[in-house]
């Protein structure tokens, strides 16, 4: 179960990475085995659904662009990459990382790619949340004595 959670976590992280970031971080890994395409990077769309009243029946909200790719490494490991947006190189880089994280290069790739990605995502979210917190209204109740 932890394996799935880990893989689910890192795939989500890769999907949300800023454009070009995964490829840039991969250069820090050194030599990477050549991967073959099982499915070449392909840009498409996903229909996003919402719920009526947030908890009711599902409805179609609109589509978002997503690019996906699947590769196979020489050792046989298969990597799947799904990234938000239309970048074919990002999708391939994500698939490559997903594959590598299932091989004995996993620790190296984790340190070079997914750990920095997670830290960057967290700090982006934290910065935004801090700005929102500054706009939170603190209501002070004023007691006006006997009436």
């Amino acid at each position: 179960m932890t394996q799935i959670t880990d893989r689910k976590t890192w795939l989500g992280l890769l999907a949300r990475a800023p454009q070009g970031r995964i490829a840039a971080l991969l250069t820090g890994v050194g030599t990477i085995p050549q991967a073959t395409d099982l499915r070449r990077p392909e840009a498409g769309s996903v229909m996003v659904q919402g719920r009526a009243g947030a908890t009711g029946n599902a409805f179609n909200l609109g589509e978002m662009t997503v690019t996906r790719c699947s590769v196979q490494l020489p050792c046989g490991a298969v990597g799947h990459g799904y990234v938000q947006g239309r970048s074919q190189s990002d999708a391939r880089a994500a698939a490559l990382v997903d594959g590598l994280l299932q091989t004995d290069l996993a620790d190296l790739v984790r340190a070079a790619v997914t750990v920095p990605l997670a830290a960057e995502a967290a700090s982006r979210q934290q910065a935004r949340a801090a700005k929102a917190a500054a706009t939170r209204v603190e209501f002070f109740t004023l007691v006006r004595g006997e009436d």
Partner: protein
Amino acid sequence: MDNAALQGGFIDPARDAARAFRAGMEAMACPGTIQTLNGCVAPAPMSVAAATLLATLCDAETPLHLAGTCDTDMVRDWVRFHLGAPLVGRSDAMFAVGDWDALSPLDAYAVGTPDYPDRSATLIVEVVALTNEGATLTGPGIAQTAKLSLPGGLLAARVVRYPLGIDFYFTCGDRIAALPRTTKGAH
């Protein structure tokens, strides 16, 4: 999902699919002619022609029915990865693939409605041999007559209440032929 199911898709999707579409279209436009159709490989026992036709025509919005020996876990995985087509029973199918015995009888398949005769099922019949001998075909797209080997009992089973009806493809190895509902056949 078994890694083997992830193999066998189009290598150059844009060009390969366009070529494949042309072959499928020619087969239907000129009933009785046998076209070459390849580019995809699906797990056994699906033929190359059937696999390529499905990869060209099917996607997440074309429910597909796998019949008989075509309905294996490997084939299902291959369909899910490469096509994304929902796998359904006969009555909901837009496409169905299998050999003639597994696909018969024809009652449950959609034949279209008077307003939308195109909302019918297209059957891809896997055959052991495909030759220009046997049944005599006439009709649109055929100069005088054409001859095509058809599974026994197909012409009798095929009820055509034009414009309603079912259209057929026949696949064998990397070869394909078609029998649209507009074609008349006789043995």
